[in-house]
């Protein structure tokens, strides 16, 4: 790892003023040029940032620590919904009583991520902004399309962990497990710039697929700090469930995950459903056909099964990852039944 200098920001606006480049931009800068060394990047928990630096994929001149900014890690009720400070750790999200009760899928998603050690350090903001885990992307020896190179190694290479949906020219899966649940709840992200003005965007719009821009996963702009994730208020009758499948239960990434949010009328019929697939596409992948299979129905095994099948319709698996489809269909079916139970 190269030398870098370190600075602690005291406020979001100070951080926004100092941070002159997003990590996505900094990684495209040619390290041979002095411009790379002038990059000033933001650090929350530092889990992803340090990984990138150790691999030699990112060589910032300065790192600005956000952890000292007061209040940025609080979780609070907000207009009936909930406002989660960007610096709240995954552990806080996993154990917060209101989240556990009213946004169960999110708490479960956070709890299923990484390892206890990492969850105590990793922040929700950093989790949403982490870069993908595609092993070609993470290898300094492979200059793939997402790093400004010419092609995607995954399409013809080792793609067992890659996307089965939405892979235009790049087949990453979005690495954030919590994002699957956040999108299912219709969460927004709140961004603050150097002037202190706020930009609030639905998370589903904030996350961008390769068709929009192959070289970044979010619409974070330089000079912006992610300050909060805002969950809308939900009717009391809302139920949610999150299920994750990995190759092993401890300390592993999803090969498939699913978040389901349901609202049922007094007669038991489903009046709203939101179903999102994780580890399936470059962004959290909402499956409207599966949602449609539930709306207006009384949920039972048959309906849940139909939703599972609808969820994988139109998938385009690569050479080594079609096995994800039966898993995704199963998780959707099980999560629907669990939410409706």
């Amino acid at each position, binding site marked *: 790892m190269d030398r870098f200098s370190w600075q602690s920001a005291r406020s979001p606006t100070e951080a926004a003023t100092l941070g002159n480049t997003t990590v996505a931009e900094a990684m495209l800068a040619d390290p041979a040029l002095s411009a790379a060394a002038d990059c000033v990047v933001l650090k929350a928990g530092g889990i992803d940032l340090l990984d990138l630096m150790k691999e030699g994929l990112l060589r910032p001149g300065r790192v600005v620590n956000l952890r000292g900014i007061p209040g940025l890690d609080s979780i609070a009720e907000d207009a009936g919904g909930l406002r989660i400070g960007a610096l709240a750790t995954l552990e806080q999200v996993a154990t917060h009583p209101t989240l556990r009760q009213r946004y169960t899928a999110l708490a479960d998603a956070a709890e299923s991520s990484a390892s206890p050690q990492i969850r105590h350090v990793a922040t929700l903001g950093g989790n949403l902004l982490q870069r993908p885990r595609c092993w070609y992307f993470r290898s300094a020896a492979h200059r793939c399309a997402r790093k400004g190179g010419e092609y995607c190694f995954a399409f013809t*290479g080792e793609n*067992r962990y890659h996307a089965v949906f939405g892979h235009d020219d790049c087949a990453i899966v979005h690495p954030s497990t919590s994002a699957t649940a956040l999108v299912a709840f219709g969460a927004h992200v709140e961004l603050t710039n150097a002037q202190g003005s706020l930009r609030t965007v639905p998370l589903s719009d904030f996350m961008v697929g390769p068709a929009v821009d192959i070289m970044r996963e979010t619409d974070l702009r330089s000079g912006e700090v992610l300050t909060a994730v805002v969950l809308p208020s939900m009717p009391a009758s809302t139920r949610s469930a999150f299920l994750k499948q990995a190759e092993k239960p401890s300390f592993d990434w999803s090969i498939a995950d699913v978040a389901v949010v349901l609202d049922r009328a007094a007669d038991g019929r489903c009046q709203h459903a939101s179903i999102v697939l994780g580890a399936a596409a470059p962004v959290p992948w909402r499956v409207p056909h599966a949602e449609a299979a539930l709306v207006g129905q009384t949920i039972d095994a048959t309906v849940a099964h139909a939703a599972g099948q609808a969820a994988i319709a139109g998938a385009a698996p*690569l050479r080594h990852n079609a096995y994800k489809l*039966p898993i995704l269909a199963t998780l959707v079916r099980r999560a629907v039944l669990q939410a409706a139970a």
Partner: protein
Amino acid sequence: MSGDNLRSEKFPVGIASVGLAEIERRIPPDEPPPLPVNSALQVIGKSTRRQDGRAKVTGAVRYTVDIKLPGLLHARVLRSSLPHARVQAVDTAAAARQPGVRAVLVIAPRDAIVRYVGAPVVAIAATTPAAAEAALRQVRIDYATLPFVVDLDTARRPNAPLVYQAGEQPSLAIAEIPVASGLPLTGNVRGPETQGSRGNIDQGFAQAEMLVESDYRTQTQTHCCMEPHAIVADWRPDGLTVWISTQFTAGVRHELAQTFGLKLNQVRVKVAAMGGGFGSKSQLGSYGQYAVMLSRQAGAPVRLVLDRAEEHLDSGNRPATSQHLRIGAQRDGTLTAISLVEYGTAGVGVGAGVGNFAQALYTCPNFSSAQNDVFINAGRGSAMRGPGNTPGAFAMEQAMDELADKLGLDPLTLRDRNDRSPVRREERRLGAARIGWDRRHAPGADPGPIKRGIGMAQSLWGANVQTNAACEVRLLRDGSVEVLSSVQDLGTGVATVLAQVVAEEFGLQPSDITVRIGDTDFPAGPPSYGSRTTASVTPPARSAAWQVKQMLFRQVAPTFGVAPEQLVVGNGQVGVRNDPTRAMSLRAAAAGLRTDQLSVVASRSDDYGGFRRRMSDAALAQTDLGGVQFAAVAVDTETGAIHVERVVAVQDCGRPINPKLIESQVQGGVLMGISYALLEERVIDQHTGHVMNADMEQYKLVGVRETPSIDVVVLENYQGQSATDAYGIAEPANIATAPAIANAVFNAIGVRLRSLPMTPAVVLAALGSVPQGS
């Protein structure tokens, strides 16, 4: 064993849970009298906490990476990012001028060929690791790329790119794995090695009434030692001192003396605490040589520690295999023929065979084997916990399970019919009772998506002994006792075992004994590979202790006014046999010694009943180490996830000396086996030749939630073969796990998985649930 002065002694023999008998053996005069069975002993056979346990869990213990010397330099290695290339030019001039650089070593000069990603090219020693790395970035190499091949199947094709051109040969030397020389090389295939074939295979199959025939595949597994390979080399005009994380201090000393033209007494090898080796630290290794060369060049000590990626790329691995197995049997299960054709790959190295497992486990008159090494452009294989037999067992024990299923026989009955070993027979009985074998249902019988099953598999491993193994025991005038040997503790707790053996002989507690090991200034101990440490070093330790005790008795006998033979030890006292009133503390007795210390160096005698085979410094005991494991699994047929719920491991290691440490070895072996069965796999990109998961994140290792309840049952098996009658345990415990799980999966879902690792993708494909990919 020759000489008339052998004496006769009666030894306990047999398996304790079956019944014991006595056998008379003729043993050399300096060997101690027979050790009674464990139930009659004070310290041996009792669980004792490892001496360094506290230091380890509190972080106080020092590893090789913690060695600090004045003026220490740090080395890093530049490695090839191409899988196959000819070096056209190496320019290190700019690198050598970098601040802090003290020595530059060109490993792959002009015209050298690099054959895998991660092959070493240049090493630099500098005042800090960062300076060494910065300097390496200034090295300019011109490569001419060559065509490459990184997978076993492609490499076997007639027009595959050649890893070695005609006339080029890989080096054959490899610790722990016997490699036949003079085998033909055709394309990338070296072999076949047909050793062990017997009988008439065609006749055998003609007699068969039932056949099973299949292909099995096993993956490349890497060692993933928690502690990386590490060395500190200090070259001085008067000799070389090396601290190295090694499984064989004495062997590394020989290698260093030979490589660098030094006398043995000019080379000292030391090892601090170790965090695992599993076969990957059996030799000096090329990285070790670089460190010494850099130290010689710089005139300063040099530290070289591999990073995690280097561990995966260039520190050895368990070779991948493809095995075609055909077994013929009569209706009653009697085997008539076994034929094995194997192609394995140890990357650019040799030794990818599957050992003698299929050949030796079962009595079968007709056996044929053809094993081949296939070269690919990947890092060299090496020994890894139960080399050969571990992938071999995955195929053979599934084939036996399949045969039992087809014949409508209980898999245990099929083993009873063909396995001569009384040890495994007893192990099957004990294990079946523990796991609840009688509850086992027909394959795939559970309703619902989660299906449970029970399976079993057997293991076979040679009982290795290093005959070139010595140990010194000293009794000091203050009554303190020391044990000294160059033997190393790679994490198994051998120091504690030595303390137990010597404590027993002196009537002391293990905590009374100081054990000094891991230094070639002490008598040369055995290597810690081939599961031979305990078998090789505890007999001389007991022998030396017994001889020191005899010397003590002779010196203090006059004080008691009895003959030395009348004296005994116990509870820290020396006294007269059968007269509790006449005793003094060992400390008081030692105070009367004529010299400051009594010392005896003893070496490993031959097994009293003789060896089966001898190989220069080592030998194979008469009987093998048997093991039987049972696994209970739950398979989610909708997600393909296999959960191992329980493993019962019944293992034999002769006389158990420390049940606690043995259990922990067996648990480790089982965990590594589960990891091998379900998770681990080195993944190489076909198009670039790079290992995509040279880390511990995408290279998946068993973790806490995948750890089942592991029930360890250790036999007490006496054979009257040495002063301690103890054999090894670490490797045997790893061999049967994967096939036991695979057989349990078959019992759960009624479908057989014949390739490793058994990931959800593999399970779902076998169940026919995966749509065709695009």
